């Protein structure tokens, strides 16, 4: 009950502070721009003839993956820059003092802030991602293999970054917690590329280094899950051939993240959240 109160407060704050309106306007601008581009692609004439469906769909698939990458980046930054202040700002400015003098568990505050941020991100993913995929379908007729799974992976990615932001903000200033969380997301992405390079070149040390980064911060595994759910089978085959010849493309993957990695990401989220709550509970305010 109290958790939901704080989650609701977080969502109301986002709405009242016009963040939702600003993000909605910018997202609609991106959607409109991509709709225009995809429409141009669908109606383009090459050598006096319209592009055939397979070619159109391959191009649309590539654009969807690039758009998903953009969304994953916006999502990670949003998670870091919304989650950290949601938790840390009220501690820094003293708003939390009168609240915690009430019969409230600190764990409820942290969980509520986390939940509110994750719900906001999930709504963003569902609405923005859903509209974008709809635009792709309407303009080009292309539908990715598993669009719902891709959106679910992106939500999970947002939850991982939010978890780090909220847990860090339990002890660090909100700005520092947000920046560190965003940097960890970037580090994880680079770790994923290093792992791919290691696997493509048969260099076990590089591959292991990438795996260690993924274990420390599992956001890239979730991005790869989204990527796999969005890319057509032919992309996977091309990626496998490319890997076999030692080349790496960060926008294609050969397989989804293994179940063990997904389980690790879940366990990691719970463990980091619990650690953040413990840090908050013992903090003098």
């Amino acid at each position, binding site marked *: 009950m109290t958790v939901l109160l704080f989650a609701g*407060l977080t969502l109301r704050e986002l709405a009242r502070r016009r963040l939702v309106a600003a993000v909605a306007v910018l997202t609609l601008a991106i959607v409109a721009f991509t709709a225009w581009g995809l429409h141009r692609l669908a109606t383009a004439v090459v050598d006096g003839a319209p592009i055939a469906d397979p070619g159109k769909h391959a191009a649309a698939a590539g654009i969807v993956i690039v758009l998903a990458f953009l969304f994953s980046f916006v999502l990670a930054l949003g998670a870091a820059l919304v989650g950290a202040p949601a938790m840390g700002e009220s501690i820094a400015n*003293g708003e939390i003092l*009168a609240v915690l*003098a*009430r*019969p409230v*568990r600190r764990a409820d505050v942290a969980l509520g802030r986390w939940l509110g941020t994750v719900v906001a991100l999930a709504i963003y993913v569902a609405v923005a991602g859903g509209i974008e995929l709809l635009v792709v379908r309407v303009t080009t007729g292309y539908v990715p293999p598993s669009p719902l799974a891709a959106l679910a992976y992106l939500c999970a990615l947002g939850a991982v970054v939010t978890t780090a932001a909220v847990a860090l903000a339990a002890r660090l200033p909100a700005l520092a917690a947000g920046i560190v969380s965003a940097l960890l997301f970037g580090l994880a992405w680079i770790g994923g590329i290093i792992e791919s390079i290691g696997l493509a070149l048969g260099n076990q040390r590089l591959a292991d280094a990438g795996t260690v980064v993924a274990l420390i911060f599992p956001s890239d595994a979730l991005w790869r899950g989204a990527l796999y759910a969005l890319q057509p089978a032919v992309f996977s085959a091309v990626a496998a051939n490319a890997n076999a010849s030692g080349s790496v493309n960060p926008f294609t993957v050969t397989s989804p993240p293994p179940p063990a990695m997904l389980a690790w990401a879940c366990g990691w989220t719970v463990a980091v959240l619990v650690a953040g709550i413990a840090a908050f509970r013992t903090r003098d305010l």
Partner: protein
Amino acid sequence: MPDAIVARALAKRYGRIDALADLTLRVERGECLGFLGPNGAGKSTAVKILVGLVRATGGDAQLLGRPVGDRRTRARIGYLPELFRYPDWLAAHEVLGFHAKLMRLSDADLAIDLVLDEVGLRERARDRVGTYSKGMQQRLGLAVALLGEPEIVFLDEPTSALDPVGRSDVRALIERLRARNTTVFLNSHLLGEVERVCDRVCVVDRGRVVAEGTVDALTGETRGVRVRADDGWHDYDVAHAEIPGLVARLVADGVRIHAVEPKQTTLEERFLALVRHA
């Protein structure tokens, strides 16, 4: 019925610094305690320990017979922090509504209206906190602290942002709380304010209690008398019992007396003596 507040050898240490050392005090129900001390004396630390925001490194304390931090007890206390701040994107009635939900008040609307009237914010209750002056935000803080008729109210510098009218209102408010048998723990720099409304005073300096007692016990030493004659005020260093004799002698000497006032140590004088001596 247990005392409202009991603290035994309460201590808080940050590294090598004693923010609070050996604070022992007892506050009865319905009593108004003035908690005084210079900046950095440990006053806010003590209040924060008592309301469960800071963990003591030594000693123990109880509120209403339960250990500090007990969740059910926290439903029976109110707290105005020194650093009062409320979400500027919410209206005052929304802030109070949120706190009412945290407290699970059964008749929240009535409770909110009561405290808004109490602090004189009813007219602006629908306006966002961001449009409030600092004084109005402090009034909102008082309303939050008084919500749900708490049995103990901790007020940490409740008049720091208020003008003289606001300060007078807060004094009247504290009087009403005392009349309702609410225990008030008043942390203030304004000694005149404490002198007027508190039953007892506890003075802390550098984390330790340096004096404690009723306001009269701390300030009541008669030190002489002031006499106003035709040519102004004159001080006479005589004992209390010698005042009638002094007046008779002056009259006999042809002095026209307009007023006679026993001189008393003010709380401010006593406070400064204690703190400077420490």
